[in-house]
């Protein structure tokens, strides 16, 4: 069981991760039934505090909270007091006054979730739903859940699984959280990116680095494609969209090189035709839709554990 906050994949022990995944599996089984809703968080208030637009993450958390019968308030920065210059501190204190039990925060500034948890601005449980270019721990949990579902249904250890993470590692919170979490479970991680999109000091991370997707793709079990932001091109991280796509995109030729039981993942939203071709995204090897579905289950598990819901079996 986790308690307090969920800020970083680094804070989770292997046992806590496995426990969360088991809870998620249990919750998923229940909500797959005819009555999707559990009463466990009735009376609790979950606030989605989104300073960046992210429809998919927000509705995933919203769905998760509602399936547990929590009240959900969506607070998005656009058109709110925040766009009129209100500080994070004042926003947090406002939510505190309104009795939020959990705050799911998405913020453009790395460390914003940690600040919210460390300061006295608010007492609620803080869940990091993506902070700048730092972390996105629930994404890593749902990715681990999906990998386990497809490759390790019966075991708890990921050793022997080789995961390629391809693309903009430098700016990716998804990559950071996944590296921390999947390596903790025993997976071998290879990062594939142009040198411009790899952070300084990466040689100290528990990963191997490669610049060559073609040489790596034959041997991997999981290939995780990261979204490439087009504004990176203007900043000269790579010359053109097409060159990036040729060298680091997943296309049908590369897809054909994958082992039979390998899976293709993407955190979404995809740039079809850039980092991933349409046929790769829609291929049988692609588990991208499963990732979205599993996101709800994993976020239910996180909310359930942090807010101390009633035992699952108790629900009537």
């Amino acid at each position, binding site marked *: 069981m986790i308690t307090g906050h969920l800020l970083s994949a680094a804070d989770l022990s292997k046992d806590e991760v496995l426990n969360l995944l088991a809870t998620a599996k249990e919750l998923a089984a229940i909500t797959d039934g005819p009555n999707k809703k559990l009463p466990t968080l009735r009376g609790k208030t979950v606030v989605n505090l989104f300073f960046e637009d992210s429809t998919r993450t927000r509705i995933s958390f919203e769905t998760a909270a509602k399936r547990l019968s929590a009240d959900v308030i969506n607070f998005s920065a656009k058109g709110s007091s925040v766009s009129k210059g209100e500080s994070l*501190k004042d926003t947090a204190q406002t939510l505190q006054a309104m009795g939020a039990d959990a705050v799911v925060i998405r913020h453009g*500034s*790395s460390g914003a979730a940690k*600040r919210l948890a460390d300061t006295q601005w608010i007492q609620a449980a803080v869940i990091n739903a993506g902070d700048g*270019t730092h972390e996105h721990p629930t994404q890593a949990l749902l990715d681990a859940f999906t990998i386990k579902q497809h490759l390790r249904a019966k075991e708890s250890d990921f050793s022997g699984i080789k995961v390629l993470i391809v693309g903009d590692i430098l700016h990716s919170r998804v990559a950071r959280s996944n590296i921390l979490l999947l390596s903790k479970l025993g997976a071998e991680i290879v990062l594939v990116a142009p040198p411009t999109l790899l*952070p*300084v*000091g990466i040689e100290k991370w528990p990963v191997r680095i490669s610049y060559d997707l073609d040489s790596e793709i034959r041997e991997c079990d999981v290939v995780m494609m990261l979204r490439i932001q087009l504004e990176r091109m203007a900043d000269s991280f790579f010359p053109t969209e097409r060159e990036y796509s040729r060298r680091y995109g997943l296309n049908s030729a590369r897809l054909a090189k994958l082992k039979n039981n390998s899976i293709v993942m993407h955190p979404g939203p995809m740039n079809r035709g850039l980092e991933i071709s349409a046929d790769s995204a829609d291929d049988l090897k692609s588990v991208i839709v499963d990732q979205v579905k599993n996101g709800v289950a994993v976020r239910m598990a996180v909310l359930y554990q942090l807010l101390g819901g009633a035992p699952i079996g108790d629900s009537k």
Partner: protein
Amino acid sequence: MIKISNAKLADGNVVDVEIDNDLISKVTKSSGTVSKGSIDATGQILLPGLVDLHTHLREPGREDAETVLTGSYAAAAGGYTAISSMANTYPVADTAGVVEQIYRLGKDAGLCDVNPIGAVTKGLNGEQLAELGAMADSIARVRIFSDDGKCVSDPLIMRRALEYVKTFNGIIAQHAQEPRLTINAQMNEGSVSSRIGLPGWPAIAEESIIARDILLAEHVQSRLHICHLTTAGGVELVRWAKKRGINVTAEVSPHHLLLTDELVENYDPIYKVNPPLRTEKDVMALREGLAEGVIDIVATDHAPHPEEDKDCEWQAAAFGMVGLETSLSVVIKTMIESKMLDWSQLVDRMSIRPAQIAGYKTQGQSIQAGSVANLILLDSSAFWQVDRSKLKSKSRNTPFHGMTLPGVISQVIYNGKQTVIAGRVLNMESDKNG
């Protein structure tokens, strides 16, 4: 007439000192007794008043963060008898009018010399030289020019500035930060920034400007001063330049002698400063550089900010730390306790050399008859705990809150007048209430 008995000097001699008006009138070997009506300095060290070449006072424009008066309180409390106000005020100190205003406010405060630093370029925009001559000729007699907070990044403007100030023996103090390599930079680029996902400020952004400016200074035979050096590579470059006989001086800020980028881990903006906290290796290189004299001086980069600019998320926070009141203690802790500097060398780095570089004639003088009486007395074996709520500065943004530091200042004498008595800054309470 002020008398001080039994004071130990930096060289170890124990003396009695007499001060008449603004001058030291007599220094004699201590008789061992404390004469009536004199300050008993037994067990304490008497040093020349400290001189800071890098102070942000925020007046005019941001008086909510600091004024010339409150900055002077902080300076006095920290043992400084001269400070140098940086030009990045609102309006910018880029005209004779603004520097004279700051100079006069300093005189009115009367607790230390307040010497304005003039902007190199108009509005700190890096494009057109400010009226350097007018500022030099004003009553503020400006000799140091800096766009601090911003780098004079255009090599041609930097060249012209270095050339132009030769007329009045001026010096350009460069904030060495290549802007294109530090777009949106938040902290030292390294393993910590990569892990916690903050945009990095690489060491080479400092080193490349230092290298360029050293070569420019050599080419035009002018004086260059490097502000707040933070990198091991920067120390190397200055060492090389000095060996080559180039007229370059450099400063280090106390926080860069003690703190590292590991502290940023929790995203507490109290550690957000520009240039950023670096690695352990850099800290050690800076200490060695200061010990060796490659780095000439300690300068505080005292940068006050109001509460709301630090009580927020990292990226929304302002860069900067207050430093006047903790500077001496941090230098004692990092340099004296480690035996890298002795007391005479500390006086050189914190008083004599800065006064020489800036041409502050009444400052950094040796303690002997005839010198202007700018003096501090401290108990070097005593410790104090830094309490942000007790700072004399108007701002509270110290990274040293809660730390126990060595060196307690008991007396400060500025131009022959006591400004700090038994650790209390003169007139401060009445002024604060009034």
